[in-house]
């Protein structure tokens, strides 16, 4: 993908697409980063410490937690453990995005993976998947008439979301976050924005990303169980790992539901699904991209084939 990107497609155009994709994150991080910088100063951090933390640590949740815990004189050990627990959910994003890095070199893969956040994960995953669905739709559409030609998949590839673009989204977000933090740290109390409002900008992003998912039964189960899991963790006082525990509970529940429904035979879905699988294999050969975005129906179909 990256090779094609550097070849014959307008690089400027691609960068513009990345900027457009990053805009909501840029808006959100500006709103959230300024109060974060203010908080850091209040907790006794210097401007350069805040800048270093924003650039290298780059974690909204973590950068709100550290100053808050410093101000309540929390022991250093428990600060480190709490922050580490909150950020363990990054493991899930990293594993999920790994499939898009198949043909990407190590340095770019590292840079991309190291700069993923909750928000940029959602935005990039949406673009990667949107691209794939388009490829799939077009192929399904042309399936009966298409003679094997290299042109169509090539064209699809060029239109696709590249790891370079995804990294650009990440770096634009990182730059915004760092600048907003430094602005907050320097300008301090000039901006007073209620923190409840600032953090709701992020909540809004998560709500939107959640409801942009295509919900089928197992996907809905994953979301509902995850939310209930987080609520229970919070009630039990496990707020640090709440997101990770909730999300894993949701994933396990969805897997269980999926393997339970897999045994139900359904001829219509089966034939449809097989068709799709063939198309997918075809696309996969060209794209070398083992994206399993439509994992629900896919796996269902595979299970049915075994029957």
């Amino acid at each position: 993908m990256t090779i094609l990107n550097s070849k014959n497609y307008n690089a400027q155009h691609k960068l513009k697409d990345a900027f457009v994709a990053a805009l909501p994150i840029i808006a959100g991080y500006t709103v959230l980063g300024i109060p974060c910088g203010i908080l850091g100063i209040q907790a006794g951090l210097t401007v350069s410490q805040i800048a270093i933390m924003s650039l290298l640590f780059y974690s909204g949740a973590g950068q709100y937690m550290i100053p808050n815990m410093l101000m309540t004189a929390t022991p250093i050990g428990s600060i480190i453990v709490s922050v580490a627990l909150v950020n363990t959910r990054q493991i899930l994003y990293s594993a999920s995005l790994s499939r898009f890095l198949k043909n990407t070199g190590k340095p770019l893969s590292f840079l991309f993976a190291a700069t993923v956040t909750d928000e940029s994960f959602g935005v990039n995953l949406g673009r990667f998947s949107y691209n794939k669905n388009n490829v799939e739709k077009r192929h399904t559409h042309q399936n009966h008439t298409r003679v094997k030609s290299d042109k169509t998949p090539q064209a699809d590839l060029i239109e696709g979301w590249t790891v370079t673009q995804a990294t650009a989204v990440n770096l634009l977000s990182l730059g915004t976050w760092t600048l907003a933090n430094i602005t907050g740290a320097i300008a301090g109390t000039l901006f007073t924005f209620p923190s409840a409002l600032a953090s709701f900008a992020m909540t809004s992003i998560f709500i939107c990303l959640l409801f942009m998912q295509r919900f089928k039964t197992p996907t809905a189960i994953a979301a509902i169980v995850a939310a209930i899991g987080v609520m229970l963790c919070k009630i039990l006082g496990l707020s640090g790992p709440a997101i990770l525990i909730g999300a894993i509970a949701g994933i396990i529940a969805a897997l269980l539901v999926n393997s339970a429904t897999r045994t139900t035979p359904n001829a219509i879905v089966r034939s449809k699904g097989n068709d799709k699988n063939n198309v997918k294999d075809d696309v996969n050969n060209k794209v070398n991209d083992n994206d399993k975005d439509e994992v629900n129906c896919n796996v269902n179909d595979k299970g049915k084939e075994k029957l």
Partner: protein
Amino acid sequence: MSWLDFGIIVGLSIASILACRVLPAMLLKSRELPDRLQEALGFIPPAAFAALVANDLFSANFFDALYTDSIGAFLPWLATAVVVAVALITRSLIWCIVTGVGSLALLMFFL
């Protein structure tokens, strides 16, 4: 904060988050994953976003406010209903941020 404390706290935090961000991607990227694992990876987005929303809505403030100020506790929930509608209609992150923060601001101002 002294640079020593800063180095210990932030240095170790950077190391832990970098490991979480980078290791799974680098270890899995050139591997053919078993079906079951791929299936599980596909459920990460809905589970993670639902967990993040729930994490924000069931905040410490929410549980405190349940006892003291019953309306205030539910303002983010009302704003969430607005954002869900906007998300389903527009599918736009920007519109969700604008209407989410806007509606919460109005609710906080008037209620």
